[in-house]
C-alpha cells in the first residue's frame, strides 16, 4: 500500500479506524454517560468530513489499490452527503436513545461503520469492492434496525431486513459472476474495455448480469418492485435509525448505481433503458399511491421515500446518452441533497413527536401540533412542501432538475407519469398539514436542543438554499464522475 492508495480512501479509512477505536473506548464510558460516545462519534465523522473537504482543493490521485478504488468529484460530493447525514443522524439519535432506554455505545459505532461502507461503495471501482462495501454498509444496518429489542416490531424489522438483504446480496454476487463470465473483468474500466475488444463479450451474459446487479441495488434503494421490506423496516426500526438510513443508504445506493452503470455498462444502455424506464415509473406511481392510504407517519414517509427514489431513477434512465449523462449526475446529486435535508426536517419532527413504546406516530396524533409547537410545525410544513415539490423549497428545484434531465433525455412520457404521481403526493403531504394546522388536538412533543437544531436547521436550509439553486447546481456539476 502506497501513500497514494491511502489518500484515495483516506476519509473512509479514518472513519473506520475511529469507529473501531471508539468501540474499545466505549467500554470505559459509564452506562449513564453515553453522550460521550455520541460526541466522540460525531467528532470522528466531522474529522472525516474535514479531510474529505480538504481533498477538494488538492491535486489528489485518481485511483488507488491497483484501480480498485477511485477518488473523484463525484465521490467527494457523495461523501459530503453521507458524512453530513451521519452527523445529523447522531444528533437526532442522542436524546431519543436516552429517553427510550436504548442508549448503548454500539449505536454510534455501528452508524460510523455503516457510513464507512457507504463511502467505500461510492468510491468502488471494482465489483468485488462494491460487494465488500455493500456488506459493510448493510450488516450494521440490520443490527441498528433491531436496536430497540426486545420490542417485537424492531426485532421483526431487523430479521426481515436481514433475510431480504442477504437475498439481495446473493443477487449481486450472481450478477457480478455473470459479468465476469462475459467479460473476464471485475474492474469497471476492464468491463467497459471488454465491449470494445474483438467480438466483445456475450451480450446476453452482460445484460442479465447487469440486470441482477440492478435488482440488488434496487433493493438497497427500495425501488419498486423490490421495495416490500421498506415500510416494515422503516416502521419497526428506531426512528433516528430510519431518519438516518432513509437518507444515507439512498445516497450510497444511487451513487453506486450511477457509477456502475455509467462507467461499466454504457454500451448496453439501449437494453437497460426500457427496464429502468419501467422501474422508475413503477417506483414513482406505486410509492405515491401506497403512501396515500397510510395512517402512520413512519409508513407514510417510508412510501414517500420510495417515491423519491423513483424521481432519482427517472433522471438515471437516459444514462447512456452522452450529452445528458452529465446533467443526470448533477441533477441526481442535487436531488439527493434536497431529499436529505428535507428528510431530516421531517424525521426530526417525527422523532420529537414520538412517545414511549411507539405511540404518537399516527397521523391523528399530529392534530394541533402546528399550533402548540410553531417551530416544529413550520419545519414539518417546509418539509412537506419540499417533498411535494412546491416552489421556494429545495425540493422544487430537485424536481425541476430531474424532470429537465428526463425531458432532455427524451423520456417525456416518463416525465408526464412522474409529474402526475407528484400530484398524488401533494394529497398525502397536505394531509399531514391538515392534521397539524386545521384540526384541534392536544399533542405532546419533546423539546431538545440537538434535535431541534437539526430539525429547524434543515428546514431553514431547505428554504434558504432554494434561493440560490444556481450555486448548488454549479457545485454539483463540478462533481464529475471519473470516466476511464
Amino acid at each position: 500500500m502506497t501513500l497514494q492508495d491511502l489518500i484515495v480512501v483516506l476519509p473512509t479509512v479514518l472513519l473506520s479506524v475511529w469507529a473501531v477505536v471508539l468501540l474499545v473506548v466505549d467500554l470505559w464510558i459509564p452506562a449513564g454517560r453515553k453522550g460521550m460516545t455520541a460526541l466522540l462519534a460525531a467528532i470522528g465523522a466531522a474529522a472525516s468530513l474535514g479531510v474529505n473537504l480538504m481533498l477538494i482543493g488538492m491535486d489528489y490521485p485518481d485511483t488507488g489499490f491497483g484501480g480498485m478504488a477511485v477518488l473523484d468529484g463525484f465521490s467527494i460530493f457523495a461523501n459530503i452527503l453521507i458524512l453530513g447525514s451521519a452527523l445529523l443522524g447522531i444528533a437526532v439519535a442522542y436524546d431519543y436513545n436516552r429517553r427510550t432506554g436504548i442508549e448503548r455505545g454500539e449505536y454510534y459505532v455501528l452508524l460510523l461503520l455503516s457510513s464507512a461502507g457507504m463511502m467505500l461503495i461510492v468510491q468502488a471501482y471494482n465489483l468485488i469492492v462494491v460487494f465488500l462495501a455493500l456488506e459493510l454498509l448493510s450488516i450494521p444496518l440490520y443490527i441498528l434496525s433491531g436496536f430497540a429489542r426486545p420490542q417485537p416490531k424492531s426485532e421483526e424489522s431487523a430479521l426481515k431486513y436481514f433475510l431480504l438483504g442477504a437475498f439481495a446480496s446473493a443477487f449481486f454476487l450472481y450478477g457480478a459472476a455473470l459479468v465476469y463470465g462475459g467479460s473476464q473483468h471485475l474492474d469497471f474500466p476492464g468491463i467497459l474495455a471488454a465491449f470494445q475488444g474483438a467480438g466483445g463479450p456475450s451480450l446476453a451474459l452482460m445484460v442479465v448480469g447487469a440486470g441482477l446487479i440492478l435488482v440488488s441495488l434496487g433493493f438497497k434503494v427500495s425501488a419498486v418492485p423490490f421495495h416490500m421490506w421498506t415500510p416494515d423496516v422503516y416502521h419497526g426500526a428506531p426512528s433516528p435509525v430510519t431518519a438516518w438510513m432513509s437518507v444515507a443508504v439512498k445516497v450510497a445506493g444511487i451513487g453506486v448505481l450511477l457509477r456502475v452503470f455509467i462507467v461499466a455498462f454504457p454500451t448496453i444502455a439501449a437494453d437497460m433503458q426500457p427496464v429502468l424506464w419501467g422501474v422508475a415509473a413503477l417506483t414513482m406511481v406505486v410509492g405515491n399511491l401506497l403512501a396515500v392510504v397510510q395512517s402512520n407517519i413512519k409508513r407514510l414517509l417510508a412510501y414517500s421515500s420510495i417515491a423519491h427514489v423513483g424521481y432519482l431513477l427517472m433522471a438515471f434512465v437516459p444514462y447512456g446518452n452522452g450529452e445528458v449523462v452529465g446533467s443526470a449526475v448533477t441533477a441526481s446529486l442535487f436531488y439527493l441533497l434536497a431529499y436529505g435535508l428535507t428528510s431530516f426536517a421531517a424525521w426530526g419532527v417525527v422523532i420529537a413527536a414520538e412517545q414511549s413504546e411507539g405511540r404518537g406516530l399516527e397521523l391523528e396524533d399530529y392534530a394541533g401540533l402546528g399550533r402548540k409547537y410553531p417551530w416544529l410545525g413550520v419545519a414539518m410544513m417546509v418539509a412537506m412542501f419540499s417533498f411535494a415539490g412546491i416552489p421556494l423549497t429545495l425540493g422544487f428545484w430537485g424536481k425541476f432538475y430531474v424532470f429537465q434531465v428526463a425531458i432532455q433525455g427524451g423520456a417525456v412520457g416518463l416525465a408526464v407519469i412522474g409529474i402526475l404521481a407528484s400530484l398524488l403526493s401533494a394529497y398525502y403531504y397536505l394531509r399531514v398539514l391538515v392534521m397539524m394546522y386545521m384540526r384541534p388536538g392536544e399533542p405532546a412533543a419533546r423539546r431538545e436542543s440537538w434535535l431541534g437544531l437539526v430539525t429547524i436547521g434543515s428546514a431553514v436550509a431547505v428554504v434558504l438554499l432554494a434561493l440560490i439553486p444556481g450555486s448548488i447546481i454549479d457545485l454539483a456539476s463540478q462533481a464529475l464522475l471519473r470516466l476511464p
Partner: protein
Amino acid sequence: MNPLLLVTFFPLVGVIVIMLMKPESKDAIRWVALATSLATFGISLWLLALFNPADPNLQWVYDLPWASSGAGGLQIRLSMGVDGMSLLLVLLTTLLTPISILSAWASVQDRVKTFMLFFLLLEVGMVGVFLATDLVLFFLFWEFTLVPMYFLIGIWGGERRIYAALKFFVFTMAGSVLMLLAILYMGLQAGTFYLPELIANRGAFSGAALWLFLAFAAAFAIKVPMWPFHTWLPDAHVEAPTAGSVILAGVLLKMGTYGFLRFNLPLFPEISLQAAPWIAGLAVIGILYGAFVSYSQRDMKKLVAYSSVSHLGFVMLGIFAMNEQGISGAVLQMVNHGLSTGALFLIVGMLYDRRHTRDMAAFGGVWKVMPLLGALMLIVTLSSMGLPGLNGFVGEFTILLGAFGSSVIGSPWLAGLATVGVILAAVYLLELFERVFLGAQRNPETAGMRDINLREGLLLLPLLVLIFWIGLYPKPFFDLINPSVEQLVALIQTTAVAIR
C-alpha cells in the same frame, strides 16, 4: 431599486415585522399588515404615474441571471417587466389586498398573526405572477400562491374547509404540473426561459405546439375556471373566509385569464387560432351554465361563486375573439369582475357576520334595517349584471362587440348565445337582491341587524368609485390597455395571414 422589484417584494417588509411581533398584540399586527398593503398600493400608483401608456412594450424591464439550470448553459433569470395589461392587474391586486385585510379586521380573531403573514405572502405571489417575464420565475410565483391560499381556506374557512382547501390545492396543481413540463420542454428546445425570446424563437418548439398549448391551457383553464374544470371553485369560495373569497375571485381567477393572454396567445398563435372556436364554445357554455346554476342557489356565497363562472366565461370569450375589441374588453372585464364580485363577496360577508347564515331564505326586508348597505348592494348588483353607466356594461359590451365581429370564432351565434347570459345575470342577481333586501322580514332576527359601520363603508367606497368611473369614463383604462393589446393582435394577424 427597480420599482417592479419594490412593488413585488415590499409586502415582505410587513412579513418580517409581523414575524417579530407577539401573537397576542392582534391590533398592532392588523395595523402593520394594513399599512404594508396600503404602502404597496401606493407604490403601484407611483408605478402608474411613471408608466408611459403609449409604449406597447414591457417597461422597466428588470433582468438578472439567477441560476443556471444545469443543462446546456440554460439560464433561469430574475426578470420582470410591465405593460398596460399587467399594470392594471397589479393595481387591482394591490387595491384588493388592503381591502381584504380591512375586511378581516373583526371577523378574523383566531391566529391573527398567521393570517396576516399568509395574506402578505399571497400578495407577493400574486403581484409576481403578473410581472414575471421568465417562465420559471412565473411558475415559482404561480405555484407559490397556492400555499397561503390553501391555509387561508383551510384554517379560517367554514365547516367543510379542509375538503375545500385540499380540492383547491390539488385541482390547481393538477394543471400547473403539466405546465411545468411544458416550460421545461420549451426552455430546452429554444434555449431560454425568457418570454420575449421564447416568442421570437417559437419555431424551435412548433413541432409540439399543440401539446404545449394544451399543457398551458390546462393550468389556466382550471384557474379561470372554465367549464368543465370549475368544480373546485364553488367549494373553495363558499368555505373561504370573506377576505379569501375576495382575493380568490378578484385576483387569483384573473391569473388564469392573464395566463391565456400572456402565454398561450403569443407563444402559440397558430394553435390559438385553431382552438379559438372550441374555447369560445366552452366559454359560452360556461356563461350559460354558470348563470343557470347561480339561479338555483339558496346560498348567497354559492350564487356569487357560480356567477364568477359565468362572468369569467365572458372574459374567455373576449380573449379568444382575438381581435382588439374582444381582448381589450376582456382585460377591462377582468378588472370589473374583480371590483363587482369583490364587492358582492364583501357584502355577503357583512350579512354573514351579522346573522351567521348565508341562506337567502333567512333574510328578506333587510333594506328597511340596513338602508345604506341596501343602496350599495343595489349599485353593485346593477354593476355586476351590466347596467349601462356602470363598469360591467362597458366590459361586456366591448367583449360582445368583439365576439360578434370575430373572424376567428367564425360565427356570430356564439356571441348571440352569450348575450342571453347577460339577461340571465339580471335574473339571478335581481333574485338575490329581492330575496335578501326586499319583501317582508321573514325572520325576526332581521329587525335587529344594524347598518354598516364606518370600516365597512370604507371597504366598499373605493370599489364603488371605480365602478362609476369605469362605467362613465372608461377611456383612461382603455388607453392603458390598448397599446399592448394592439401589439398582441398584430402578432396574431400576421400569423393568421401566414396560415392562409
